[in-house]
């Protein structure tokens, strides 16, 4: 039995959905993209002249919910289905779109450039807890026009894992789809075995921006998965109550699904978010708050009542350092996400309200994720009798007897997660002998090991060269003559 966390009962979920439908009718949704408004209007939605506001009826949403896929997979470079969006499957990926990275030696938050992203990709590639990569940080040294496509370019070059990404404009989403097509072999192949999923954000409250809705439409038409990341802030950009915020979140996601399915019925889309409470002392959006995790657990329950695939932003912290606060906020919220059966949980590695990334935090978070994944496996019955079969004639009432049983050797790995060297279970003597390091110190060592052991994946040279050429062309159009030199890749 997979252990599950539930915060809402069925009655409350039904009420949330009913009120969300009501919100979609009145005050209705602001849709700033003309094509999206047109799609909605021609399907019978009510346009309010001169306001961009569109009233969406319950029946229109329900029609969209009929065509939306209830599950799909993301694939790795080799074409293996790695990520199952659907049911209660759980996966984790590093957080996305950081603008800074923690320097482990100076503890400065450095403005991120190409080497920072490569460092994160290399570390995440080797940690099995991360089923997907993310386009984790922005590379500030390249022009704004290509910052989103450039991140995907690097992820494709340094990883074989599926990728959680996102575009910053309606123009670049097309370019990024082209990149995936190029790497997948054809548009059909990129659709059949999608390698990447795109986060698409509505703006709270109840706004689908020109770019957000435009991305939904482009992705739907291409058949590339989209992940709605609705970001209501309880008490500021959404009602102060948890239930009010979850209801607004539901309405925003339902509006997005409707636009998406009208553009192309049957295209894959995920019910996701980065909901948070609004901190009333600092005016901040705490990602490590327990209420933030509770919002996510709640909206995941709403999504699951409609059998939708799910996503959430958890496993992050608001601390500026990889410290005890980082550990407790990231660990607790990752556990809540896992117990909520959320298909993709993004946020690991991130500090400072999702602004700053840390490779060291990524390796520590991997341990919390391993604990959460172990928890979700639950208690298994491996033997017919629970205990009686263990007491054979060799048991002579000595501690340690069970260490001598073959079954102990056979089963201990299934029963126990074996943590990496980041987790200290040494005696004091051995701990001191190893340098007497704290978790951050051990994480620094582990990152160094992982960077040293990283090997660039073997990729089809022809595809790689075409990708280089494609990116060079985009860069030149954006006014950048020469792309940054890449570790492990000879200039071509």
């Amino acid at each position, binding site marked *: 039995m997979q252990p599950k966390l539930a915060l809402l009962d069925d009655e409350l979920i039904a009420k949330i959905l009913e009120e969300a439908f009501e919100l979609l009718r009145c005050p209705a949704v602001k849709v700033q993209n003309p094509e999206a408004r047109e799609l909605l209007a021609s399907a019978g939605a009510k346009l309010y002249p001169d306001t961009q506001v569109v009233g969406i009826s319950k029946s229109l949403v329900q029609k969209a919910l009929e065509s939306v896929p209830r599950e799909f997979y993301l694939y790795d470079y080799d074409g293996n289905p790695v990520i199952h969006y659907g049911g209660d499957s759980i996966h984790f990926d590093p957080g996305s779109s950081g603008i800074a990275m923690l320097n482990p030696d100076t503890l400065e938050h450095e403005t991120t450039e190409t080497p920072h992203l490569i460092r994160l990709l290399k570390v995440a590639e080797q940690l099995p807890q991360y089923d997907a990569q993310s386009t984790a940080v922005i590379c500030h040294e390249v022009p704004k026009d290509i910052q989103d496509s450039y991140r995907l370019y690097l992820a494709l070059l340094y990883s074989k894992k599926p990728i959680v990404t996102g575009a910053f404009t309606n123009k670049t989403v097309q370019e990024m789809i082209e990149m995936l097509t190029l790497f997948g072999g054809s548009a059909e192949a990129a659709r059949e075995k999608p390698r990447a999923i795109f986060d698409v954000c509505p703006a709270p409250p109840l706004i689908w921006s020109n770019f957000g809705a435009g991305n939904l439409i482009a992705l739907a038409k291409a058949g590339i998965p989209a992940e709605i990341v609705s970001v209501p802030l309880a008490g500021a950009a959404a009602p102060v109550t948890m239930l009010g915020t979850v209801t607004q979140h539901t309405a925003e996601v339902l509006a997005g699904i409707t636009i998406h399915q009208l553009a192309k019925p049957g295209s894959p889309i995920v019910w996701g978010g980065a909901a948070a409470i609004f901190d009333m002392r600092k005016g901040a959006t705490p990602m490590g708050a327990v209420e933030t995790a509770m919002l996510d657990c709640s909206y995941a329950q709403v999504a699951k009542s409609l059998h939708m695939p799910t996503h959430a932003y958890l496993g992050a912290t608001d601390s500026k350092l990889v410290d005890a606060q980082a550990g407790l906020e990231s660990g607790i919220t990752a556990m809540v996400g896992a117990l909520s059966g959320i298909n993709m949980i993004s946020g690991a590695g991130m500090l400072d309200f999702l602004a700053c990334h840390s490779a060291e935090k990524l390796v520590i978070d991997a341990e919390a994720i391993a604990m959460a994944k172990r928890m979700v496996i639950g208690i298994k019955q491996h033997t017919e009798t629970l205990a009686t079969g263990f007491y054979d004639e060799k048991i002579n009432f*000595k*501690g*340690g007897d069970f*260490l*001598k049983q*073959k079954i*102990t*050797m056979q089963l*201990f790995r299934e029963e126990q997660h*074996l943590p990496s*060297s980041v987790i200290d279970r040494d*005696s*004091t*003597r*051995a701990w001191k002998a190893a340098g007497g390091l704290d978790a951050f110190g051990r994480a620094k060592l582990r990152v160094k090991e992982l960077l040293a052991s990283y090997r660039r994946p073997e990729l089809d040279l022809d595809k790689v060269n075409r990708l280089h050429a494609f990116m060079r062309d985009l860069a030149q159009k954006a006014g950048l003559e020469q792309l940054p030199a890449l570790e492990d890749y000879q200039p071509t």
Partner: protein
Amino acid sequence: MSEELYKEMAQSIIDGDSEKSVELAKKSIELQMHPLDTITKGFVVGVNYIGDQFGKGEAFLPELVMAGEAMKAAVATLEPELLKLGEARETMGRVVLATVEGDIHEIGKTLVGTMLSASGFEVTDLGVDQPAEKIIGKALEINADIIGMSALLTTTMVRQREVIEELDKEGLRPRIKVMVGGAPITKEWAEKIKADGTSEDAVGAVQLAKKLVGKE
């Protein structure tokens, strides 16, 4: 031919497969291989390998203990042959282990025993709640090089001192070395009661034992 067999022997220890190690020991007797060669070139190689792996964190306690058990079973099979030849297996040393009187917590001590056996020591484990005279009596009986004593409780750790005082009174030290261990045992305590050393874990205990018998 024997090279292949040695490899299989080492593997049987690595796999912690006592049935296989005994079967191979019997086979070596049939083939009239020298039992000392069988042990040192075959089985011991496996024990050393798993010990190394454990030290690196790549092997785990169940594997280590099972390897120790497989080793013990193989050596027991070969022992009569060794006796016939009038030779004894050269051991690292003889150790008597016990948890002191009044204390019944022995998991750490049992692990130390396993590690010592796997490292070539001949270990006699008396178990829990052992008074000084029994521990010393056994040490004399088997001509032990080392006595190892554990205690988990602060109320029973004082018994370690009694055993040491008794040994000193009988003039049995430094012939018999004393190691002490257990959760409350510190280096300071070991020095205070004039023990020859202490370790916080089983891996350290083996290093200490080797040092005490001059075979580092």
